[in-house]
């Protein structure tokens, strides 16, 4: 029933170290959430601004545990035929055609209609059995022998009705299929739900999950992240660029630069062989960090002021 015992998840510290060895630097809070989710068999609802590593967390956990990652990307109009299961209609149709003759043999010698039907009843619902079931991500996650990481990405994009569909899966790790009955998970998967907060998630769903909010990291944490992702950037520049990104986040922007943008920027600075930040360089590479014309303009005006604390070390 339970995910087998993974020594990688034995304590909060071990999780933190395991993640770090895979290049995912996290705060103790995130590690605690993973630890609790594993111990209590509860899904985690991860919220936070885009680009702080919500999806990455699930991927890294899958890597750490060496289990398959099954991902369900949510969108408006997602329904159970795409998320849960569907019948293989083609196969059903083909089989009925092929088995037609067999059927004739079987019914051969039956006295009347009642007897034929009686004989047919002995075979049960052959065409509505697991062999004809096309599992979609949610069901697939239930069927994994060794357990799996199930990532339900951007659950806030899905419709309200879809959330209700998730409730049964998240609290009991089982799926009800009308024709077959209840399918219980062989090994309950570890579930991550992510949300960008475009709408409020229903209370019923929240109640079943651990709630993890990942904010933008602190300067110190972000420097560690950049160091692990872009190890070639020298220490001085790394400090400068992280400081600069942090001061950018203080501005009133439409979309503040996230960790992934910081990493991209560090990579581009590396390509440009920069060893310190100056106004010209920042201005020409600002489009890596900011994705809106308004934002670039707003930040461009403040550039000198923003650079002063970052440079004055």
């Amino acid at each position: 029933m339970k995910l087998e015992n993974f020594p990688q998840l034995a304590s909060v510290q071990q999780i933190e170290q395991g993640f770090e060895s895979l290049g995912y630097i996290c705060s103790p809070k995130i590690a605690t959430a993973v630890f609790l989710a594993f111990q209590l068999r509860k899904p985690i609802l991860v919220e936070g601004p885009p680009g702080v590593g919500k999806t990455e967390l699930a991927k890294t956990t899958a890597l750490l545990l060496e289990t398959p990652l099954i991902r369900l990307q949510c969108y408006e109009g997602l329904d159970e035929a795409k998320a849960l299961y569907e019948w293989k209609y083609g196969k059903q149709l083909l089989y009925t055609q092929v088995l037609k003759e067999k059927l004739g043999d079987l019914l051969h010698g039956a006295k009347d209609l009642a007897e034929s039907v009686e004989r047919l009843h002995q075979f049960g619902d052959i065409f509505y059995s697991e062999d004809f079931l096309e599992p979609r991500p949610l069901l697939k996650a239930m069927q994994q022998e060794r357990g799996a990481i199930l990532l339900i990405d951007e659950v806030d994009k899905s419709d309200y009705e879809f959330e209700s569909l998730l409730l049964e899966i998240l609290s009991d790790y089982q799926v009800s299929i009308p024709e077959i009955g209840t399918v219980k998970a062989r090994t309950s998967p570890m579930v991550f739900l992510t949300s960008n907060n475009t709408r409020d998630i229903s209370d019923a769903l929240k109640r079943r999950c651990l709630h993890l909010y990942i904010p933008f990291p602190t300067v110190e944490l972000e420097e560690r992240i950049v160091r692990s992702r872009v190890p070639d950037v020298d220490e001085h520049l790394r400090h400068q660029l992280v400081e600069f990104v942090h001061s950018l986040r203080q501005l009133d922007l439409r979309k503040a630069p996230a960790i992934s943008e910081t990493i991209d920027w560090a990579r581009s600075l590396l390509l440009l062989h920069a060893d310190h930040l100056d106004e010209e360089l920042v201005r020409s590479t600002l489009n890596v960090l900011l994705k809106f014309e308004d934002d670039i303009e707003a930040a461009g005006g403040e550039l000198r002021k923003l650079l002063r604390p970052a440079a004055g070390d």
Partner: protein
Amino acid sequence: MQSNLVNFIQVLRTHDIRVSPAETLDAMDVTRTLGYADRSLLRDGLAMTLAKTPEEEAVFLQCFDRYFSQSLADFAGGEAAGDGTVADEDAASPGLDAGPEGAPSPVPAPLAEAAAGDPQLQALLEAPLMQALLQNDRNTLTLAMGRAAERVGLRQIQMFTQKGQFTRRMLDELGEEHIRQAVIELEKQESPALVEMQRYRDILREQVRDYVEREYLLHAGGRNQQFMDDILSRTRLNNIEHMYLHKVHELVRKMARKLASRHARRRRTFKRGQLDMGRTLRRGIPHDGVMFTAYWKKVRREKPQILAVCDVSGSVAAYAKFLLLFLYSLQDVLPRVRSFAFSSHLGEVSDLFVQHPVEKAIELVNWKYGGATDYGSSLLDFAALALDDINSNTTVIILGDARNNNGDPKLEILRSIYQRARQVIWLNPESRRAWGTGDSEMLRYQSACHFTAECNNLKQLERIVDQLLKSTR
């Protein structure tokens, strides 16, 4: 400790965090898994199960710190100054505190001398309470205070005026009267031990007073907040003191969110009449191509569009601030709201709302569009700006007192809006009796509105907007 956790959850509830029984059980599981050894670990773990939004988490952290760090102020410091010995201990919370070593009772010399000849005083010194005080044993003292608080029902405290009363009762429950008695006795005897005894009495009083104060903040703080919110939402908007403005802001925002989430979900409807051929065929395959079930095309309903027009002239200045606040919040949570403001002329302010934080935006709107009212020309401006966009999905809300300084009301423009729009709603801050008096054109404008209402406190505003969203569905 389990009951401690339940009490803590009670505290969270008074602070407006909704915790269900299931979540309480989860929290218990969390404490069992994580243990009490690491405070910040426990805090993070509990936060994940109990606080489900970033806002709740902020409140949670505040409550956690207040609740679990009820360490007593270290009163060994004062003693050390007196006898010249150094006693140093870090302040720590009761549950996590290892407790001081059981050193032999350091009864100060004058007290010991006085007690030698007085069996009553001797007995008092050996009582647990006095021992705890003498040995600076904060754990025992905290426990004793906790028990006393339980007996006097300190958790029921609601108003700050009750603080004195509860302190007194707590002291009685702890047995402070014996110490008081002893002080009186010593005073009569003019004993040198008097000062020491008085000092211990004061320490005890101070500790209890602190304890009551903390409990008050924990239990009554949240309740008072609810009380306050309730009052504010019933007060006429122009009477709300300036100092409460930021509170109202929060309240309005909460309200707008609530309304938006209540109505945002019912936008999709089935439209019978158009067959979804593909889906019906596909669903028919298992039945050998016989289409048992018909599937109809789902039609995504046009999301309602709201045009809100707000009067910001001098006569409604006190209301305008709130109405703008409401518009601002509404635009934050509903996707298709366009806002306009006017006094003598009218302009669209949607962009201002998008680009600026709320205070700045309201200030800018007032500065740009404030002045004397002219409904006629404002309606003209409005028609020029937005009349083409008004269709059967549009709701037009007008916020204003309809006092036109005896100018031309240009009723025909409102009428043409009335004919095109799904709904025209006029919210007037004046009471219904004043409509039509003096230069008020309200009665005339009323003829070209689907719905008019008096609206001068937040409760009314909420009810009207709720109704409005229901009908725009």
